């Protein structure tokens, strides 16, 4: 097991330190004002929301840690899946009925990856592990499935002529949509694959930074980071695959016709 608990309790961050970091927010707002980027209002809203949201989440996590109930953890993860699907749906506006595929994709990605890391004995099934790892897994799964379905919506529009010409040959909907589904799946996964390639070279990932700041040894920080990266790879591939394979069907009728087709009237 990873000695996360020991590391995490070794530093204390005071409120004045957080307040002092607002100086950098002021700098960002000043740059925006100076260069007329018109982002001051957004920066203020973003700062306010980050304080409120993270504080609330902090109290919620503290409560869950104190209660120490696996059921409460599962309830929290279910809420994350639900809100993740609702959020991702906006990115997938061109995909008809995208909510159900997204909900199933996030639930499956979260359940399978967390289940596997627990079953393999990597993490204990306790709130201290499942809440933060679950949040990362579901968050990344949400981004991946949203990107994949966003691409699917665009591609199904762009490739309509080719897909219909393939259907005209007597191909099934699945066969006709296969190249499109493949590209959508790829675009959902590629960001994490690329960042995994460059991790440590171009940027230090968040978990590793957090652990180093909290006083953990670099070896432990690296090991935990690797575990999380691989867990996320599993999660994004499951969610992007599930979402695209379920969602492409919504573009077709049971008779393998493209739905909502702009009919040629020439």
């Amino acid at each position: 097991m990873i000695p996360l608990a020991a590391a995490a309790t070794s530093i204390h961050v005071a409120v004045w330190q957080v307040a002092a970091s607002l100086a950098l927010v002021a700098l960002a707002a000043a740059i925006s004002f100076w260069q007329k980027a018109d982002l001051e209002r957004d920066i203020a809203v973003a700062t306010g929301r980050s304080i409120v949201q993270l504080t609330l989440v902090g109290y919620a996590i503290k409560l869950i840690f104190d209660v120490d109930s696996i059921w409460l953890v599962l309830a929290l993860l279910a809420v994350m899946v639900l809100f993740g699907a609702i959020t991702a749906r906006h990115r997938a506006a061109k995909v008809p009925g995208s909510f159900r595929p997204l909900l199933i994709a996030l639930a499956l990605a979260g359940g399978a990856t967390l289940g596997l890391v627990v079953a393999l004995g990597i993490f204990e099934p306790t709130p201290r592990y499942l809440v933060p790892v679950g949040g990362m897994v579901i968050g990344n799964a949400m981004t991946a499935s949203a990107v994949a379905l966003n691409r699917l919506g665009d591609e199904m529009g762009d490739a309509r002529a080719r897909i219909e010409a393939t259907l005209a040959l007597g191909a099934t909907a699945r066969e006709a949509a296969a190249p499109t589904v493949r590209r959508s799946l790829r675009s959902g996964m590629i960001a994490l694959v690329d960042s995994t390639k460059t991790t440590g070279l171009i940027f230090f990932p968040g978990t590793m930074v957090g652990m180093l700041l909290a006083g953990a040894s670099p070896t432990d920080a690296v090991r935990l980071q690797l575990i999380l990266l691989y867990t996320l790879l599993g999660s994004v591939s499951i969610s992007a695959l599930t979402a695209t394979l379920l969602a492409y069907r919504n573009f077709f009728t049971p008779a393998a016709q493209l739905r909502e087709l702009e009919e040629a009237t020439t």
Partner: protein
Amino acid sequence: MRQSPISDDPAVLFELRDVGLDRGGKTVLDALSAGIPEGATAIVGPSGAGKSTLLRLLNRLADPDRGEISYRGRALTAYEPLALRREVGLVPQLPALLEGTVESNLRYAAKLAGEPLELEKTLGHAGLDPSFAERDVNKLSVGEQQRAMLARALAQRPRVLLLDEPTSALDHAARDTIEAALADLRRELEISTVLVSHDPEQARRLSDWVLRLEGGRLGGCGPLAEVLA
């Protein structure tokens, strides 16, 4: 000639009964009743008359909102759609080949239909010489792509071929090549064709039965000499 796996009534190919279709709150096809016999039929009419829409109904790429269409005496909806499309092929107006070579496109189509592919012969029927087999579809001219689309449809050995303005984007030379290929098809392969064309002269050259559409309604249907007199 190859027997149909799904039907064999020779008299009338398609029969339309009160066929109507709306799109975006607009009536595109209205109360169409007409017959299309075996042989060569042209659907003619001005732009926006509903010709392409009607063609797509014939192999169930779309279904009418009203009325019924039958193929060889049975309702279109009684056929399994994928099997129907392999027997009643459609070549769309704009080329839309799959990534790869001309040959890979033909092989894909033949495999879907469960037919062996006679590559050179099939290319020849579409007016393409054997050297086209290895060509990347993205490096073909529009005219060559349209002929590759025709060859791909022929690779499935259809009994009926629906052709949507197969020469609309072509110059005279390329148009003549495709027209000659279509005339050969009828002679050599006994394939019935239903051709959409905005050009009455092309209809005269390539068909003996004509269906004329005007604003989504039937403007005439019968032998070439009567409808395009």
